[in-house]
């Protein structure tokens, strides 16, 4: 294990502050966007792929049945809307709401990547590697490669 001199303090470390600042900005951007995109959707400013008046007919079904039903009745794609395929529907009021949700879910990956250089610089290799591993795991989860079916 590397030898490090750590100055104990009641103040947060540089990495912790950097992480907090990025998290805060990502959270604010995500939340503000969520209000805007939901208003575009719910007030009918943007057309919805699944009409707002009909969504309640589908949300009591298991997710696979729901995806099949909305595909058959509205989308008519040759595959279901899973993974990142919602990107193709970004012009629709309901699916544009996935942008802020993805930002809120993805900001942690950026936070982790941002603190890695500082950790390596201070010789804190164990934490730098753990931060990289966490970023890789979250990226894998975000990639859609792990989505499995019923």
């Amino acid at each position, binding site marked *: 294990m590397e030898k490090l001199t750590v100055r*104990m303090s009641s103040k947060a470390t540089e990495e912790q502050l950097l992480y907090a600042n990025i*998290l805060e900005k990502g959270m604010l951007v995500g939340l503000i966007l969520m209000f805007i995109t939901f208003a575009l959707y719910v007030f009918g400013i943007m057309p919805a792929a699944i009409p*707002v008046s009909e*969504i309640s007919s589908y949300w009591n079904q298991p997710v696979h049945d729901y995806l099949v039903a909305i595909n058959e009745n509205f989308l008519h794609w040759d595959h279901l809307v899973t993974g990142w395929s919602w990107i193709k529907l970004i012009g629709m009021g309901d699916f544009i709401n996935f942008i802020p949700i993805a930002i809120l879910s993805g900001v942690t990956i950026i936070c982790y990547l941002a603190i890695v250089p500082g950790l390596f610089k201070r010789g804190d290799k164990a934490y730098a590697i753990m931060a990289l591993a966490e970023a890789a795991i979250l990226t894998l989860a975000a990639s859609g490669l792990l989505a499995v079916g019923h």
Partner: protein
Amino acid sequence: MTKSVLQKLGGIYVFLLCALTLSPVWALASEAGTAAPVPVDSDLAWWAWPLILLIVTFFMGIVAVLGGVGGGVLYVPIISGFFPFHLDFVRGTGLLVALSGALAAGPGLLKMNMASLRLAIPVALIASTMAIVGAMVGLALPTNIVQILLGATILGIVVIMFTAKKSAIPDVKQADPLSSALRICGIYHEASSNEDINWCVHRTPLGLATFIIIGFMAGMFGLGAGWANVPVLNLMMGAPLKISVATSKFLLSITDTSAAWIYLNKGCVIPMMVVPSLIGIMLGSFVGVRILKVAKPAFIRWMVIAILGFAGIKALTKGLGIDLF
């Protein structure tokens, strides 16, 4: 005596959880046995359910703050038990509810040095990995099995809330070798006594191992895991209570992120459910913080335990196909 009985009950529960989740029989089971969802009332206008959701989550946000629990642990059993939404969407939304709360609180807690990044990073690595596994298993299992396990878990949480003690500043005689090597320690300023408190942790390998189960359950049921994080960080690992609570809240922003991606990629996110829920919980939390100054914490805590007990029984009976109430 009580401790022994609880340990045995815990052992039985973990065995049942493993047996139910790992048995291939369940993976082949059809959805035919799934408890019927609450029927959609076609007489209601399309905006009625989101509006009801907004109102209910508003009160849920108040109760969550006053009761000292996360939004997710109230959201999933109550909404899945009493609303027409399928459990798949409720779990996806529950994770986003817990995630948003953690994202809102996390930056401030980190800046104040109440949440410890050094404590969170190794714990989060394990918990978030297992949350992904839990989410994948939870989405592959028949709904009634997940509902039964959810009910049992919620009732287990009630027992934990009922029995778990807290230690403001646990007596950690010596940091263990792993936490020493990782330098999981720190100083925080205790405003009430105006002094700096040195802290370190012990039993780190055992604590990290426990987060395998916690992460799995968070992902499987879409629950925030503050109910489990705090006792493990505080009582098992010996972190001061304030550090445990703050680090637990921050941890949810990582653990729930990983599981949320699985639910999002699987299609378990409906904006018409997610956004009213998030707005309701957030507004309720703002109001809850203000009420907190005048509320009686003991009464609120008992109320949360009662609500969770009720929701747990509802989830359990719904999974078993018993229409109890």
